[in-house]
């Protein structure tokens, strides 16, 4: 209606467009900054809790279970285990991927937290818990301070992980 009114140069005006714009300077904090600097270099970085030894990826400032500050920085691998997943049949605004696609929770090797990432390279009815996957990175010249450097994960030719190895992450 308003667009029509805006473009109609003869009839009565019935609507107007009133854009609102908010400009922020976003800072992700020290822990996520460390993670994003790793992404810029093609690395997956985490932090280990000195108390429970769990590795958080992306890292936080401290361990939410133990309440202690993280000290040690660790590099985890870009291979991992698909611990759970959802088959997506409906797209949402600003995200257009061929349907259906699989949104997967991946436990990267060396990490104790899972990361949600797009899974491709396998028919949706063949996706299963325990599948071994590897990150597919964007071309190096497109690497930014962003998790989106990992475009998606794809299956790799390895036996499925034993359920006991990831059961606490399901």
């Amino acid at each position, binding site marked *: *209606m308003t667009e029509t009114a805006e473009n109609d140069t003869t009839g*009565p005006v019935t609507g107007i467009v009133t854009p609102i714009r908010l400009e*922020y300077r976003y800072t992700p904090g020290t822990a996520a900054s460390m993670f994003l600097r790793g992404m810029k270099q093609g690395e997956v970085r985490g932090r280990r809790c000195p108390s429970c030894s769990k590795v958080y990826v992306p890292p936080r400032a401290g361990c939410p279970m133990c309440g202690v500050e993280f000290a040690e920085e660790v590099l985890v691998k870009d291979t991992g285990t698909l611990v759970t997943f959802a088959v997506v049949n409906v797209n949402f605004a600003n995200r257009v991927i061929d349907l259906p696609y699989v949104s997967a929770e991946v436990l990267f090797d060396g990490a104790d937290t899972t990361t949600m990432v797009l899974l491709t390279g396998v028919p949706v009815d063949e996706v299963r818990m325990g599948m071994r996957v590897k990150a597919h990175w964007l071309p190096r010249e497109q690497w930014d301070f962003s998790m989106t450097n990992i475009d998606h994960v794809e299956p790799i030719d390895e036996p499925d992980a034993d359920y006991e190895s990831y059961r606490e992450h399901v």
Partner: protein
Amino acid sequence: MSAVTDAATPTTVLEAPHVMEFPYTRSTGPVVGAFLTGLRDRQVLGARDSAGRVVVPPPEYDAGTAEAVSAGDLVPVASEGVVTSWSWNPTPRTGQPFDRPFAWALVRLDGADTALLHALDAPRDAVRTGMRVRIRWAQETTGGVHDIACFEPGEAQ
């Protein structure tokens, strides 16, 4: 690529611009719609209220009687008038009418009994209450308040 700022020391944080925009659309209703239609034709319209005053911009309801104002009752006023009050804006911000210093002014157009707020493009030492100003129309009018680009010193041409 994003415009991330990275001081690259382990204790510093990254920083990046983050912009949110909401392109709202609003229906104008019969009275404001008629006012904006007038602006598109480079004509300012006001509403004569129950006290006989001409109010610009026109309200949708009479301030005295609360009766609905009819779009058919709007009356034209002049494109020039007098500054009744003003405030100097020395450091304009993004999205304001000019990127150089200018005045915000209340202007009572000839034929109107109320003043309307808009930008006044004039040198600092030229602006005063009581000065005569005229509308500078946008090069292309579209039916919005920005059809009045600003006010400038002088009488209508």
